[in-house]
C-alpha cells in the first residue's frame, strides 16, 4: 500500500504553493468583502433614500435629477411630522398595545406550548395538526368575519379590539413547542417526583431554558404591533386608539390628495428608528431564537 502514498512536497514547488496560497487568501477575502459591501449598499440604499428625502424640501424632492444629499437640511420636516400627525399619542397607543398584547400573548403561547409539548391528552396530535393547517389559509378573508364578531362584542374603538383577536399565534406556539420538546423529559419527570407543580416547573425550568425564544417572540410581536395597518384602521376611528402606521398613511395628504412626501418620510423614519434600535440591542436573542426554532421539526 505504501507505494500509493501521496506525492511529496519535493515534487511541488514549495515557494510557489505558499505564494499562491497567500494570494488566494487575500483575493478570497477581498471578494467576500466586496460582495458583501455591494449587497449591503443595495440593502441600505432605500433607507438612505428615506432619510435624505425626509430632510429635503418639497421642491428639491421633486428635482428632475435627484440629489444624493439635501442641499438644505430641513429638520423642520420632523417637527411637522410630529405636529401634523399627532404622532405622540399614536406612538403611546402603539407602545401600550404592543406591551399588553405581547405579555398576554406570551402567557397564552407558553401555556399552549407546554400542553402540546409535555402533557398527554386525547386528540393532541390531531389538534396540533389542525392548528398548523390554519397557518396555510390566507388570512385576508378573516378580516370581515372578525370585524362583524368584534362589533357584536361591542369592542370597536377600544384597546381590547387591537389586542385580543390576535393574541394567539399558531406560529409562536409551534416555535415554542419545538423548543420545549428539546428540553429533556427527564427534567420534567424528576420535577414530578420531587412534587413540583406543573406551573412551578414551567416557571422555574422551562421558561428560563427557552428564554431566547421567548424574547424573540416578544420582539416579533412588538414589531407586529408596530407594523399593523389594516386591522387597526378598520376598528378604530379616533386618535385615542389609532396606531402609528395609520397616522403615517393618512396624515400627510392635503385636500387635493397631494402628499408632502418629505414630511411623510420624516414620520416613517421616526417610526422605523425604535425597531432598528430594538434589533441592534437584542440582535443576539433574535438570532438565537431563529436558529433554535427547531426547524427540523
Amino acid at each position, binding site marked *: 500500500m505504501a507505494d500509493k502514498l501521496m506525492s511529496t512536497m519535493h515534487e511541488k514547488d514549495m515557494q510557489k504553493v505558499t505564494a499562491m496560497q497567500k494570494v488566494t487568501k487575500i483575493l478570497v477575502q477581498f471578494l467576500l468583502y466586496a460582495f458583501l459591501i455591494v449587497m449591503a449598499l443595495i440593502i441600505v440604499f432605500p433607507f438612505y433614500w428615506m432619510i435624505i428625502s425626509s430632510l429635503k424640501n418639497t421642491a428639491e424632492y*421633486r428635482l*428632475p435629477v435627484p440629489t444624493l444629499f439635501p442641499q438644505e437640511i430641513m429638520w423642520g420636516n420632523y417637527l411637522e411630522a410630529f405636529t401634523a400627525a399627532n404622532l405622540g399619542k399614536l406612538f403611546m397607543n402603539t407602545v401600550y398595545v404592543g406591551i399588553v398584547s405581547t405579555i398576554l400573548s406570551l*402567557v397564552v403561547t407558553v*401555556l399552549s406550548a407546554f400542553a402540546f409539548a409535555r402533557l398527554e391528552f386525547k386528540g393532541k396530535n390531531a389538534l396540533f395538526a389542525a392548528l398548523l393547517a390554519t397557518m396555510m389559509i390566507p388570512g385576508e378573508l378573516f378580516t*370581515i368575519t372578525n*370585524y*362583524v364578531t*368584534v*362589533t*357584536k*362584542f*361591542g*369592542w*370597536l374603538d377600544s384597546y381590547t379590539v387591537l389586542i385580543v383577536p390576535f393574541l394567539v399565534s399558531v406560529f409562536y406556539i409551534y416555535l415554542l413547542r419545538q423548543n420545549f420538546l428539546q428540553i429533556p423529559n427527564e427534567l420534567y419527570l424528576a420535577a414530578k417526583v420531587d412534587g413540583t*407543580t*406543573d*406551573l*412551578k416547573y414551567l*416557571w422555574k425550568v422551562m421558561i428560563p431554558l427557552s428564554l431566547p425564544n421567548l424574547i424573540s417572540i416578544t420582539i416579533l410581536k412588538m414589531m407586529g404591533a408596530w407594523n399593523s395597518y389594516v386591522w387597526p384602521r*378598520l376598528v378604530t*376611528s*379616533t386618535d385615542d386608539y389609532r396606531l402609528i402606521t395609520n397616522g403615517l398613511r*393618512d396624515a400627510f*395628504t*392635503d*385636500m*387635493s*390628495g*397631494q402628499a408632502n412626501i418629505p414630511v411623510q418620510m420624516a414620520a416613517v423614519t421616526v417610526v422605523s428608528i425604535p425597531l432598528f434600535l430594538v434589533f441592534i440591542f437584542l440582535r443576539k436573542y433574535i438570532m438565537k431564537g431563529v436558529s433554535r426554532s427547531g426547524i427540523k421539526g
Partner: protein
Amino acid sequence: MKKRIISLLLVLAMLVSAVAMVSCGNTGDSGNEGENGGNGANKVRYDVPAEGYDGSEVTITFYHSMGARLQTVLDTYIPEFNKLYPNITIEHSSQGDYDGVRDQIKTALTAGNQPNIAYCYPDHVALYNVAKAVVPLDNFIESTITVTDANGNTSALGFTAEQIADFIPGYYAEGTAFDAAGTMYTLPMSKSTEALYYNKTFFEQNGLSVPKTWEEMGKLCEQIKAIDPDCVPLGYDSEANWFITMCEQYGSDYTSLDKNGHFKFDNDTNRGFVKMFREWHQNGWVTTEEIYGSYTSGLFTATEGQKCYMVIGSTGGASYQQPPQVDGNALFETDMATIPQVNPDAPKVISQGPSLCIFKDSNPQEVVASWLFVKFLTTNVEFQAAFSMASGYAPVIQSVQSNTVYQQWLDKANGINNLTALSVKLALSQSNAYFVSPAFNGSSAARDEVGKLMQSALVYTGSDVDAKIKELFEAAIYECEYAAH
C-alpha cells in the same frame, strides 16, 4: 398550589368574559321601514314616525373627510343647531378621504355599526343600497309633520317649496340618480366641478384666445406647442372624468340604470373621441396625472423646465393652480373658464363633491334627528357660506350668494392669490350645465374601467390603433360586467 389556582382563575376569567362578550352583542336591526317595492316606477319610501321628532335624547354620528379647517367650521355651527335641538348630540369624525369613508361604512354595515350620516358620492350610495341601508328621503322632504324647536317655534319637518326652489337644480337632482322612479337618497352638501385653468399672462402675451370647443382646443394646443416646443400645453387631471364628460357632451351612451345592460359605453362615438385624444397625447399636446407620473398642477406652476399652460382640474383644488411667487411677485396670472364643449350652447360639466345620506337605524328618532341635522346643514345660509369660503367648494343653495359676507368674499376673487373664490364664482355661473351619471351597483367599476381605458389608449404607441381601441373597450366592458355580476 397557589399558582395553579391563580392560573385556573385566569383561564376561567378569560372564558367567562369571552362568553359574556358573545352574548351581549347587539342583536342587529332591521329598522322599521315600510317599503312598497323599489322595482317599478314607485319610489322607495321610508315611514317617518307620526310624532316627528319627540325631543328625545339621541346621539348622531357623522362620518366625513373634512380637514382640520373645515372641521372648525362644522364645530362652530353644531352649537347653533343645538340651540334649536339641545337633545341631539352630534359626534363627527374624519375617515381620511372619500374612499376612507366608503370603506369604513362598508365594513361597518356588515356589523350593523354604520354611522347615522355620511359624506357620500352617488356610487357609494348605490353600494350601500345593495344592503338597503340608506334612508329614502322623499317622505321627509314631503313631510308636513310639525316640529317644535327649543325656542318654541314650530316648522314643518320637511322642506317648504321655497327651500326646494333655493337648491341649485343640478345639484338637487343628483339625489335622484339611483332608480327609474327618482327616489331621493341624498342631499347635496357642497359641490365642485371641473374647470379650465389657464395661464392668462401667457395667453395675452401670445395673443391666444380661450377655447370654447374641443376643436378650438386642438388648434390651440398645436399653436402653443409651436411657441414652446418643450411644453405640454394641456394637463387633464382625471382620465375617468374626461371620458364621462365627453360621453355627456356628445350625447353618447355611457351607463344606464337598465338592469339588463348597465354598460353601454362601447360605441363608435366614444371610440372616436378616445382615438382623437390619443393622437393629441401622441403629439405631445396633452397629458394626465397618471401618465405624467405626477400632478399636472406641478407642470402648470413649474418655474423651470417643462411647463403646461392649461389644466382641466377640480375647482376644489384651485389653490394648487395659483401662480408661484418670487419675492412677493406672482410670475403670471391664472384665469379660469368653462371646460371646452362639443356644443357650447348646451354646456355639460360634471358635478362632484360630497352629498349627505342618512342610514337606517333601529331607533327611528335617530333617523329623524339625522334628518333635522342634514336639513340644517343644507339649508342654513350662514353655514353654507362659511363652509364654501373655507373649502373652495360651491354652496348648494342660491340664497347664499345674497349673503353680504359671502358677496364680499367673492368680490375679492383674483387669479393671483385668491383663485379659490374665482373657482367658486365660475362654479356658480355654470349651474345650468351640471350632470351626474347613473349610480347603481357596479357604477364605480365603470368609472374605474373607463379611466384605465383612457390611460391605456392614450399611451398606446403601436400601429394598429383601431384594433387596440376596440380591444380596450371590449376588455373594459368585460371587466364591468364581471364586477356587476
